[in-house]
Structures are given as C-alpha cells and as structure tokens.
C-alpha cells in the first residue's frame, strides 16, 4: 500500500500560511478545508493554529445571533439570525417533537442551553453547528431551578432578572431575549479550532 500523500508539493508550514489566510467571516471555508485531508484537519484543530489565526485576524467576528421568539407565536424555537456567511443552523427541533417550546437560556463555548416545555420539561444542550443535542438529567434542571438560573418564558419579567441569566436582559417588541452566537467550539475537531465561540449579547 502506498503511503498516504497529503499535500503534494506544498510543505506543511506553507499549507499553514495558506489556511491562515482563509477569511474568518466565512466560517464554512475553515470547515470545508478541514475535510480536505487528515493532515489539514490536524493542523486546523491544533492549538497552535488557533493562536496564530486569532493573532492574524483579531477578534472573532459575529456570525449571527439567536432570537427567542414569543412562545405564543407559532415559532417555538429560537431563530438563528446570521450576520455572516452561515446559511442556517441545524435545529434539533424536528427530532424532538415532544418539546412544544424551546427557549435559549444560555449560550457559551459553542453550545446553547435550551429549556424545553411540553410533555417533558428539561434542560437541553444544543450544538448549533451540527444540530446535535443532549438532554441533561432531570436533577440538573432541579438544581438550576433551586438556584433560580432559569426562567419560564411566560413569567419572564424584568423583575425576575436579577437572578436570571445575563443575556436575557435585552428586551424589545417582538422578542424577549437575544443571544449572540459568535461561533462554535464543538467543531474544534473539524476545523474551527475553537476560534469561534458563543457569547451572550
């Protein structure tokens, strides 16, 4: 069997110079590049590359934000509003029919914490770039409830905020909270290298 050829003609440190110059405001470029071959994937997911990429391009750009919709509307899942070249994010909603409402209550490290209501009232961690999600054990929800770290959408009031998540303090007509997604750590192995992350607005 012939040994795997990775980057014909271009040495690895030159590949790094090239990949470093992929535009940060088009995250899909990095994801696609990470699928070209294993050496590229290793390179892109390495800490060293991440550090260089960050130093080269500066602060990560905003790729979009999540908008919690009024639960009385037909839309029962937070909308993703892209501000960069991410066409859409994979919702777990279709696969989770028993959540009549999902509400984003926190957002960090590339993950979104959702609270769901419906037949099952749970906390769910959603990985928006892949659509994966993980339902947290019930005792987590109970513990969060005890610490008042989650809010029911119907009862969402300003006065409820002191104990609530920071990101829900932005109110306006038509929406009740805005979460900002600045990228994703979940795709670290696939090429973002942790450059993008999820932040609260």
């Amino acid at each position, binding site marked *: 069997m012939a040994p*795997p*050829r990775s*980057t*014909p*003609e*271009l*040495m690895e*440190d*030159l590949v790094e*110079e*090239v*990949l*470093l*110059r*992929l*535009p940060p405001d*088009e*995250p*899909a*470029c990095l*994801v*696609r*590049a*990470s*699928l*070209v*071959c*294993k050496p590229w994937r290793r390179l892109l997911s390495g800490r060293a590359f991440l550090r260089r990429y960050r130093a080269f391009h500066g602060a990560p750009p905003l790729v979009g934000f999540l908008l919690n919709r009024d639960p009385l509307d037909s839309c029962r899942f937070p909308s993703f509003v892209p501000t960069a070249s*991410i*066409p*859409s*994010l*994979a919702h777990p909603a279709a696969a989770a029919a028993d959540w009549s409402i999902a509400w984003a209550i926190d957002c960090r490290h590339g993950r979104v914490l959702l609270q769901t209501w419906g037949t099952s009232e749970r906390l769910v961690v959603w990985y928006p*770039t*892949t659509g994966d999600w993980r339902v947290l054990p019930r005792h987590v929800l109970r513990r969060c409830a005890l610490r008042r770290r989650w809010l029911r959408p119907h009862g969402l009031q300003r006065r409820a905020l002191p104990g609530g998540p920071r990101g829900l303090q932005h109110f306006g007509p038509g929406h009740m909270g805005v979460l900002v997604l600045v990228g994703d750590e979940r*795709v670290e192995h*696939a090429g973002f290298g942790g450059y993008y992350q999820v932040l609260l607005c």
Partner: protein
Amino acid sequence: MAAPESGDGNNGAARMVTLISSDNTRFEVEAAAASLSQTLQLTILDGGGGGGDGIPLPNVDSATLSKVLEYCIKHAPAAANGGAPNATAVDRAELERFDNEFVNIDQSVLYSLIMAAHNLEIEGLQSLVAKKVADMIKGKSPMEIRRTLGFPDPTPEEQAEMNAHMLEYGWAYE
C-alpha cells in the same frame, strides 16, 4: 538571463550582488532588492555576494529566481523607506496592481514561488502567494480543493469520512 543592469563597483552606483540559481544562472541585482530576503540580508551584510563570488542558491531554479527578483526589485524602494511612510496613495495602488498581476500565474509557478519565498525568508512574497492560494480554495468544497491543489483521488475510507463530515456540517455546504 541575467538582470539587465550590471553595476561595476561602488563608484556612486548602488551596491550590486550576484545570485546564482540552482541551474548556474547568474543574476546581478541591487543589494537593497536582494536584502528583502532575510536569509540573503545576513550574507550581504557580511560583505558576501559582491565581485566575482556570487551567492549560490541551490534550492531555487533560474525561472523562479527571476520571478522572485522581479518582486524584490519592485518592492525594494518601499521597503527601504521603512514601510514607506511617505509613499503616496498612487505608489501604494501601483504596488497593489503589480502584486495582483504578479500572482496571476500558473499554479506550479505559484508553488515554486512560495517555496522560494519560504526558503529565502521573503515575508511579503510568501504572504502574497499564500493569500492567492487561499483565494483559490476559498469557495470550494473539499473535493474541489483536492482537485485544485492536485491531491490524488481520495481512498474509499477518506471518501467515507468526508461524506460523514459533510452530513454533520451540512450548513457549510449550502
């Protein structure tokens, strides 16, 4: 194909150095231009490259070296001004136009250029070519990138892995 002008000595003219490509072609070029290469700069500061000696560059062929020197000669005045604080917008626009046309070349030449820029440590040139290659792969799918850069066809295992990742990161392919 030597550089057109050959300065003979230091009587008022700029100092010249001789570079010798892997295929033994001699290039005479101003020391200021050759000094864009960090590697050559050290040798030149030590007084090398003048007279009949010449600096051998066993990793760079004459076609590539002539292209590299074309870049260096064009960029030397701006570099000599220390980032050109007094450069006019016209000068900068001219350099930009030159750069754009300069990298509008065959891919194999691009590769030779980036290797040479890497070996000779010419940061500006390496950056310019790397940006050009990045632009070439920017909008492409993994398979298209592989084809563009001349990778061999993926093995069935690689193909399966790519397909699985594409499913997982569907949004990156819309």
